[in-house]
C-alpha cells in the first residue's frame, strides 16, 4: 500500500527534472514522510525546520512579509525548503541541473495538495 502523501513527493521527483530527494517534516523537525536514498531524513527534517524558523525571523527583521521558501545554492546542487502551511515544511534536494521553471510550476500545487492531506490529519 502506498501512502498518498509519499506519492506526492515521488510525483514531484517525476515531474521536475533535477529533483533527487525530498523530506516532508513538521515545523518542529519530525519526519512526516520522505522520498530519499542518500539523505538522512531525520537530520534533514531537523535542520530544515531550524532553517525555516530562522528564515521566518529573517523575514520579520526585513519586514518582508511571509516567508515562502529558503534555498541553498551549492556548487553541485540545491537544497530548497518550502513552508507547507504553518505546521509543516518540504525540503527538496536537487542537482545543479534543476529545471527551475518546472519547479516553480509544480511546487505550489504540491504544497497545496500536501496541505490538504495534512489538514485532514489534524482534523481527525
Amino acid at each position, binding site marked *: 500500500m*502506498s501512502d*498518498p502523501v509519499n*506519492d*506526492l513527493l*515521488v*510525483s*514531484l*521527483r*517525476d*515531474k521536475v*527534472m*533535477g529533483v*533527487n530527494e525530498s523530506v516532508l517534516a513538521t515545523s518542529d523537525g519530525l519526519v512526516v514522510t520522505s522520498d530519499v*536514498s542518500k539523505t538522512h531524513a531525520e537530520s534533514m527534517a531537523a535542520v530544515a525546520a531550524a532553517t525555516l524558523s530562522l528564515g521566518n525571523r529573517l523575514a520579520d527583521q526585513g519586514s518582508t512579509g511571509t516567508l515562502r521558501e529558503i534555498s541553498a545554492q551549492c*556548487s*553541485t546542487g540545491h537544497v530548497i525548503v518550502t513552508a507547507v502551511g504553518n505546521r509543516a515544511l518540504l525540503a527538496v534536494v536537487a*542537482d*545543479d*541541473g*534543476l*529545471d*527551475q*521553471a*518546472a519547479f516553480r510550476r*509544480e511546487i505550489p*500545487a*504540491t504544497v*497545496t*495538495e500536501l496541505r*490538504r492531506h495534512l489538514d485532514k490529519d489534524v482534523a481527525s
Partner: protein
Amino acid sequence: MIDESTEPGTGSRNIPALLAELRSRKQSRTVRLTGSPGGTLHLRDGLVVAMETPAAPNVESLLLKSGRITEEAWSAVCAADTTHDRLAEELVAQELVGGGELEIISLSALFDAAFALSLSRPDGWEVTDPVPVLYRNPGITPERLVAEISRRTELLADRPGSVAEFARTRMQLAAPAQLPGAVGALPARLQDVLTNTDGRRTPRDIAFALGRGLFAVMLDLRRLLALGLVQSSAPVAPQRPSTATRTPSAPVPAPPAAVPLPRRLPGRNTPAPTGTPSETP
C-alpha cells in the same frame, strides 16, 4: 521577422529553420526554448557556441562535478570576472584547465544539450539579445548540429522503445547474483555508472551525478543492459494522485460496496452476473 506563431506539433522541426535563418543573417542572439525541459541556445555571428538545458550537464557541471576544477578555484575565477563573459579565457589564462581541454568540454556539452533537447518538443521560443555564457569553440553550424543529433539517435535506436523514453527511464541493478564475476572485468567508467544506478536515477540523473554527458551515459547503460547487469526500474504506479488540481476538497472515492465476488458456475466460461454491470465487453 521570426515567425513565432508555429503550431506546437511542428515546433521542434522549426528550431533548425530558426537557426538557419539566424545563421544566414550572422546574428549573435540568445534563443530561449520553453518546454519540459526548456533550454537556452547561444549564437555568435550566426553559429551556435553553447546550449544549456536541465536535461544535460553544462560546462560548469562537467568542470566541477568531475573534479577537474576545485570549488575554490572556480569561485576565484568567477570573482575575478563578474560578467562571466571572459570566463573561458580566464580559466585558461590561470592554467586551471588547458585550452584544448576546455574546447573539448565546451563542444561535448554543446552537442550533448542539443541531443537532450531533441528528445522533447519545445512549447515555443523567444529570441533575445545575446547574454554572456561560458564557451570556447569556433561555433557550430545548424547543419552539423542536426547531423550529429541524427547520428546519436540512430546509434541508440536499436533498443526497443524510443530514445526519449530511455532517457527518462529509472535504471536499477539486475539481480545481485548475476553481478560479481562480470563487474570486476569492466572498465572503471562502466563500474562508476553501475555504482550510480540505484533504481531512482534516470540516465540524465546519472550523468549529473558523474559529471559526464547524457549521451555517453546512455551508451554505457545500453552496454550494461546488453550484459544483463542493469535493467529498467519498475515504472511508478500510475495510480498516484494528481497534483494538478487545486480544489481544496476533491471527493474521496467511497470504499467499494460489499458486493459478492463473481463466482464461476460449472459449465460456463463467463462469471455469473452478480448484480453489478460487467466491465468486460
